[in-house]
């Protein structure tokens, strides 16, 4: 029966002591508290499923930034199910809500939510996104993760634009124990070129490339990204390449435009959703998954290099709805 029960089973039995579930628990605590308490409150306050109930539910979903289109579609299919399955109890509906959200995200396909690391070869990960979302910090977190797994990591300072960007990444390379390549005041593509050559020489396994924050409507800056891609293909043609789009959990509807524009130009393979330690719900990733079909691979839960978790939709939804179960 539905995903809801599946999740419920997973968490009430097997995953109780699971470390990552716990981390989600603390990181998403604020998110969950607000979102879920509102939902369960809804079940208490409204016993009848009427217009008033639907409106309150819609407000909760919109407030989570799930995306106006997605919410509208979601509400439509919910109304349909309520009618068809003759549901009158709001408690029962809570389960269906979780189900439907899950379905939006999973959308009948197996998701590759892992980073595709090349064994006995190089993996190059390009980090892209608008200004200030947490690209550089996410690089530090991912470097830390792979270094702990015994990989050699190299960071390349492809942000040659923003003041202090070079120093920021360099400092993180020292803290994490990564190799570093950067050259101030030069063209990002040429820095990346030289950095990749250096990575070939020092035999790094994983190469993380920082890029300057860019708003997706700046065509010339977006073109710069495709140039970087060409450089990667040229210098290490047989590498596994990933492009991670970093999205700030506080982002509203613009997140969809970001995902569309970056995907068009760089073949984004995944999202890093940052700043989930705040009160933002990051629901926009559900809309992005639905409309642009990019999965979330990691989430950021703080400013330290240890504050990174792989994304797990079951954990995510569980985190949002735990109190209801």
């Amino acid at each position, binding site marked *: 029966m539905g995903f809801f029960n599946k999740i419920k089973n997973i968490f009430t039995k097997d995953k109780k002591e699971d470390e990552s579930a716990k981390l989600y628990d603390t990181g998403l605590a604020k998110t969950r508290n607000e979102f879920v308490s509102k939902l369960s409150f809804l079940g208490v306050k409204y016993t009848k499923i009427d217009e008033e109930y639907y409106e309150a539910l819609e407000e909760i979903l919109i407030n989570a*930034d799930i995306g106006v289109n997605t919410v509208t579609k979601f509400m439509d299919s919910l109304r349909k199910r309520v009618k068809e399955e003759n549901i009158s109890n709001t408690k029962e509906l809570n389960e269906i809500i979780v189900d439907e959200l899950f379905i939006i995200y999973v959308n009948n396909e197996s998701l590759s939510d892992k980073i595709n690391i090349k064994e006995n070869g190089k993996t190059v990960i390009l980090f892209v996104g608008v200004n200030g979302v947490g690209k550089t910090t996410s690089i530090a977190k991912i470097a830390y993760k792979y270094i702990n797994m015994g990989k050699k990591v190299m960071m390349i300072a492809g942000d040659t634009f923003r003041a*202090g960007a070079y120093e920021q990444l360099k400092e993180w390379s020292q*803290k994490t124990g990564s190799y570093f390549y950067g050259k101030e005041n030069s063209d990002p593509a040429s820095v990346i070129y030289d950095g990749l050559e250096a990575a070939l020489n020092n035999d790094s396994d994983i190469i993380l490339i920082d890029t300057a924050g860019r*708003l997706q*409507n700046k065509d010339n800056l977006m073109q710069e990204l495709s140039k970087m891609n060409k450089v990667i293909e040229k210098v290490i043609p047989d590498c596994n390449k990933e492009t991670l789009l970093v999205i700030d959990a506080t982002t509203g*509807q613009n997140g969809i435009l970001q995902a569309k524009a970056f995907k068009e130009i760089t073949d984004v393979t995944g999202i890093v959703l940052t700043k989930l330690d705040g009160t*933002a719900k990051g629901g926009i990733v559900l809309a992005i998954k639905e409309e642009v079909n990019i999965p979330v691979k990691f989430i950021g839960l703080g400013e330290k290099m240890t504050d990174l978790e792989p994304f797990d939709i079951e954990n995510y939804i569980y985190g949002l709805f735990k109190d209801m179960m």
Partner: protein
Amino acid sequence: MFEYMGDRLSNAIKNIRGMGRITEDNINDALREIRLALLEADVNYQVVKEFINTVKEKALGLEVEKNVKPDELFIKLCKDELVTLLGGDYVPLNTNGNPAILMLVGLQGSGKTTTCGKLANMLRKKHAKKPLLVACDIYRPAAIDQLKEIGRNLNIEVFTEGKENPVKIVTDALSFAKENKHDYVIIDTAGRLHIDETLMQELVDIESTAKPQEILLVIDAMMGQDAINVIEGFNSKLKLTGAILTKMDGDTKGGVALSIRHLTNVPIKFVGNSEKMDGLTEFYPERIASRILDMGDILAIAEKVEGIVSEDEAKDQMKKMRKGEYNLEDFLTNMKQIKKMGPISNILKMLPQARQMGLNNVDIDPKDMAHIEAIVLSMTPYERRHPEVIKASRKQRIAKGSARSVEEVNRLLKQFEEMKKMMKLMANGNMKLPF
């Protein structure tokens, strides 16, 4: 007026057109579209609800007079309501204090450090002041370096004192400012979450030490519904005096502006609209209202263009356009101007009407400029003024002369036609640009 609006909304508004009266029936569609437009602009859910109710009530009470189209009346009402919500008059910076102290606060990544530089630059330029920047972000790696670099580029002094104690840094910076006759002190603080008790307390401590005239909340225009929690969080702990909306050069609608105004009494003072140090402008409610209703950011383009085209040049062109005399020489001039403004596709994106006309495919790569110039210059003056005579054999000659292909010549002529179409529209006043 509604010509400028997004397709969906203008379709919904059509129902009202031609009606003698505004009734609940004929505005329902329009209200639904406006509601969606607002939600898609990230305006807070509660604010949207209240707004729709107010507009509905007022619209139903409207008397439709002769000569006034009810749809125009309705849209005007919506826009006026939005502008009212966004706050009336412009509130200048409070500069009473010697030195006057400004403190910038906000979430991580909202743009505080860059905005500090822009503010200092603006104060020096516009008011001939001597600002001092103070680096208090002791947490983020290289945040101090970032501010130092900004100061170095602007040639504005930056006070730094390591990564120990922000309150002490501020205290020392203030005596330094007095000694060195700085009349403005701008404090850059570390980004923090509004729920981080320790770091919020740090801001309170800085506030009570510095007693700033202005505490400005720097907030990302792309922010979603969480904005209300953030604004409330900062506003409940600090005496905010204003807000600065950053990254408005993106394609976000910036509905967060409404949340700020709705939740606090705090005026939005500035808008950040580029990564460069001159990218800070005063806040105009009109503009965001138009942007949210998808009416195109005509004014923003107007301002952009102003600095680039001289008034005489503009009037001259206007006259030519009206007479339908726009030719390839003017085209070349315009292309050069547009090159200075950035990619033409961006400019057209700001004009919903251009979108409707299918003009959004016009694009000119800056690199192509040299080619365009070469092609136009390979034409005879007569050809430039009468492009319609350019047929196959002439095209071949021009291509050869400019060392470009015939296809490129064709493409240019097509772009010219598109441009002419647009110019004609503007000249007829359907699409206003201050050329």
